[in-house]
């Protein structure tokens, strides 16, 4: 379970989060939606302790997160931008992260799932964006943590990889994990998520099921429902 209390974050004068309260119960897939720059990544990074908020608390499984960040051993994280040390090989990178984390991992299965066998000795600098994202996915899913946080997991993926990703997420969900995900692909969100959270102007604007959002906005599909919220708030 993840709980966020009164989270405030600004970069310089730029206020991004202005009092986010959110409770994400155990088990299931929760999508965080919101326009570009609404602070989804900032919120996720606050949960991980990579961003230091001015105010507010984060609890994981009932315990307040400690600044030393050791609680991250219960979190698997996929960063939005797959930035890797370019001079390392794929295999080297995986080995290094395993060594640093000190837990066992099932990377082989994932390497096969995403068809990365042929890339293991290639330097990360020489990989295409989509292939890098697959490596990113392997790193995020290879540890068996109870909470998984995915920031834009679909970016750059081909349709086959996309299908595999969906299967993978479903499999992890079936194990009873809590999965937090952001995405701009509404069909993906609609297909996988149990509940959505909509972030707007620094606060949680909506939290509930997709069905509830449809009823609230009177729109049938998610894309239109979101557009509805946005135009209403601009007017």
């Amino acid at each position, binding site marked *: 379970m993840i709980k966020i209390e009164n989270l405030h974050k600004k970069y310089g004068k730029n206020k991004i989060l202005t009092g986010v309260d959110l409770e994400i119960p155990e088990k299931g897939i929760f999508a965080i939606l919101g326009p570009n720059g609404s602070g989804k990544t900032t919120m996720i990074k606050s949960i991980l302790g990579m961003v230091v908020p001015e105010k507010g608390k984060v609890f994981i499984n009932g315990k307040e997160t400690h600044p030393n960040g*050791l609680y*991250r051993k219960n979190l698997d994280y996929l960063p939005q931008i797959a930035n890797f040390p370019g001079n390392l090989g794929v295999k080297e990178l995986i080995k290094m992260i395993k060594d640093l984390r000190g837990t066992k991992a099932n990377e082989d299965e994932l390497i096969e799932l995403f068809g990365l066998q042929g890339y293991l000795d290639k330097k990360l600098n020489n990989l295409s964006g989509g292939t890098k994202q697959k490596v990113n996915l392997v790193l995020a899913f290879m540890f068996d943590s109870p909470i998984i946080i995915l920031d834009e997991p679909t970016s750059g993926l081909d349709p086959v990889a996309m299908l595999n990703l969906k299967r993978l997420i479903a499999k992890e969900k079936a194990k009873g994990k809590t999965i937090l995900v952001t995405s701009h692909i509404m069909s993906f969100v609609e297909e996988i998520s149990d509940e959505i959270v909509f972030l707007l102007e620094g606060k949680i604007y909506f939290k509930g099921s997709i069905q509830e959002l449809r009823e609230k906005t009177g729109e049938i599909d998610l894309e239109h429902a979101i557009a509805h919220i946005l135009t209403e708030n601009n007017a």
Partner: protein
Amino acid sequence: MLKILKYSFFDLIRSRWSYVYLAFYLLLGFVLLFLNNDLSKAVITLMNVIIILVPLIGTIFGVMYYYSSKEFTELLLAQPIKRSSIFIGQYLGVALSLVMSLVIGLGLPFILYGLFESAAIWDFSLLLVTGAMLTLIFTALAFNIALYNENKIKGFSYAILLWLFLAVIYDGLFLLSLILFEEYPLDKFTLIATVFNPIDLSRILILLKLDISALLGYTGAIFNQFFGTSLGLISALGMLTLWVILPVWNIKSKAQKKDF
């Protein structure tokens, strides 16, 4: 932290630049010994090179490593590792690999030349200790500058300016103020000015040990007069240690507050 240190250290000693640095010291050591044909004289020449060059290399490697390992750092920040371990580990990885190049690069020629049978061994050891201290200090200062500056070009420029200031401009300003304020007693001012520059401190430290009053210069003479030789040595070394501890402590505290 040790794991991070290990990765940074081996990452660096695999790099081409470490070899260039090592080769440079090997060459310098052999050439100096060949030209001077005398261990103690070579030590003095070496001092003049070390107190200028070691800070420059520490500064450059420090900023360069910080910026070029940004991706590595980001990856580490998402792992269950303390921030202080990440940054201090990387810092020590850089600083220790530089110290290793220095000690091996200079040590080897001097040992081959018969350092162990020579009276210059203590002077030489102090020289290496001072070089190590300067490496630790300037790498730490470079890390600080990089932590405060997202922009690589800016960070790099500030770091070079800092080196230029402490290695060259500081002495000029100091001399200028001595001339301008001739009629005032300047002992205290001199003492304080020296303490605020690790390069000056290092120079005095070595010259006190070598016991060459002719080379001490005004600042060194004041220092000597104030502390005496042995207390002077100890206090100079103590202040250099402080110059290591404070920037390292600031790396830790700044890293704790930074967003990634």
